[in-house]
């Protein structure tokens, strides 16, 4: 009996691996064939177009990376997926939106431009204020989300806070719709950050535009990512976060206020999602109650791709996903409207074939 079962097990494992290998080989073969097709046989895109794709991908990827860190930080510490994280981003996007609207209502007429408002007269202060407000409201939302929806369920089975997270996500979407209406609003930028404007430089036979909004997004994301990494690796709070992630009772024995560290983790994740929300608004230009949903799921994909719980993994996963979304459709020969499908296809494939992510899940003793 036992031997029979063991043999069956070996057989089923190897069958699974064969299928995995065949699918992988087919997929890579297809990509190579497509690459050959569009780069050599029938080059429909010039280098300038590829450059445009790459720029768009890197910018979007940097936003995904910011959001993905939030999933990974929370998972690292509580072993739960904060499905309401996308909505935290939405709240931050609205925060920045209302700052811009309010500043645009302050007239600062000059002789040259009697219509000038504070928003365009003082773009640096305006953008700074938008980020401060956006990040703060998201940080606060994250703090209360944990306190209200997750903390009471701390000792419940792992599925319970997950369901609570989905509930919180739906609740926040509906609250957003009630408060701000269902219509899509245009994000009103300071004039210098008019969408579409940017530095132009020649590539191949065309010109490529590096949009100002994109440059702002990328540079700010990068700075925040470096800051976060430094915080986690070098500061007292970061060390406490890593200790709490590894073993909560022992961290408490070191004098760490575990609940306080968990709160601060949600505040940090929330602030990063808020920054991402403001960037989303400034760069892509739309905000409405559902704006956090798709980027939220994509950033979750990025976090899973990088190995959930793994901070550098989430950063790389974010950039990877942004680039795949930008150059994936032409390489695979799909319509650009299917870019979301590619992202979710990746999520499904990773979850099936390598649920620990490309970089591997961080192992913890305390996987309750």
């Amino acid at each position: 009996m036992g031997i029979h079962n063991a043999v069956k097990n070996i057989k089923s494992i190897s069958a699974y691996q064969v299928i995995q290998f065949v699918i992988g080989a087919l997929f890579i073969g297809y990509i190579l064939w497509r690459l050959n097709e569009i780069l050599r046989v029938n080059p429909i895109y010039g280098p300038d177009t590829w450059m445009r794709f790459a720029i768009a991908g890197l910018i979007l990827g940097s936003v995904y990376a910011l959001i993905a860190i939030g999933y990974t930080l929370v998972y690292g510490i509580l072993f739960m997926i904060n499905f309401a994280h996308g909505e935290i981003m939405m709240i931050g996007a609205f925060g920045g939106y209302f700052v811009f609207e309010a500043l645009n209502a302050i007239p600062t007429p000059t002789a040259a431009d009697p219509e000038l408002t504070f928003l365009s007269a003082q773009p640096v202060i305006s953008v700074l204020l938008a980020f401060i407000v956006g990040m703060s409201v998201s940080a606060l939302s994250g703090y209360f989300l944990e306190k209200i929806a997750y903390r009471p369920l701390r000792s419940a089975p792992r599925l319970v806070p997950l369901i609570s997270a989905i509930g919180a996500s739906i609740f926040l979407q509906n609250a957003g719709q009630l408060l701000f209406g269902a219509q899509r609003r245009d994000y009103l930028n300071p004039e210098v950050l008019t969408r579409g404007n940017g530095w132009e430089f020649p590539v191949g036979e065309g010109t490529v535009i590096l949009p100002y909004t994109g440059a702002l997004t990328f540079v700010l994301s990068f700075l925040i990512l470096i800051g976060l990494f430094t915080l986690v690796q070098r500061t007292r709070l970061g060390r406490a976060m890593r200790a709490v992630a590894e073993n909560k009772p022992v961290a408490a024995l070191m004098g760490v206020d575990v609940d306080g560290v968990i709160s601060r983790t949600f505040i940090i994740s929330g602030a990063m999602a808020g920054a991402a929300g403001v960037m989303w608004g400034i760069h892509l230009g739309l905000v409405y109650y559902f704006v956090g949903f798709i980027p939220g799921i994509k950033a979750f994909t990025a976090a899973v791709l990088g190995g959930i719980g793994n901070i550098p993994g989430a950063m790389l996963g974010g950039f990877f996903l942004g680039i795949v979304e930008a150059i994936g459709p032409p390489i695979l020969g799909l319509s650009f409207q299917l870019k979301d499908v590619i992202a979710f296809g990746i999520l499904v494939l990773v979850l099936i074939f390598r649920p620990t992510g490309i970089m591997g899940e961080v192992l913890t003793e305390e996987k309750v």
Partner: protein
Amino acid sequence: MPMLEVHNIHTYYDNIHALKGVSLSVEQGEIVTLIGGNGAGKTTTLRSISGLRKTSRGSIRLNGEELGAYKPHEIVSKSVSMVPEGRGVFARLSVAENLDMGAYIRRDRKGVEADLERVFEIFPRLKERRKQVAGTLSGGEQQMLAIGRALMAHPTLLLLDEPSMGLAPILVESIFETIQQINQEGTTILLVEQNALMALSVANRGYVLQTGEIVLSDTAANLKQNEMVQKAYLGME
């Protein structure tokens, strides 16, 4: 007034009545040992003192102050440190970071540096491996790290949960020598052990715990001579 006075505590895990009225006291400067078999409630006693497990009845006083209302991280700042069973080093943190975690509550840089020197003096191995990730240390080195980390809080009362567990006999001796040395340098110690022989050789007094109740308490010397202790815990007939 004893430094630590545990009076008639009851502690539960859901419906498991793990401690059924445990009382014990530790005077300043002593090494007191709590011995007993597997599942007797030794770890639960230490967890109750350090606040990790709430007691449902009884009192725990430190220098006269009731600890019951405090959370574990608040009890640490009252100069009580615990080395948990199974060491509990942070495997993904470096040795240096683990030691830093031990000094988490402290703000006196000078004092922390002095204590770090002291820990490296007691455990030179830790100094050599300072940059190494703690998960890659051997069992003995992890125990040194766990004790060193607790010392970094500069405790006046140190709770040790089975420091000899899983160590080679030669290491066990050196760990117990270290415990005595730490005590001579002024730290009061409550030592939980299954290795009763070693524990009774370093301790001043001892308590015997059986299924959640203290069944004996005496000086360590007397306990060593006690027939019941010899039979049950020292493996003598």
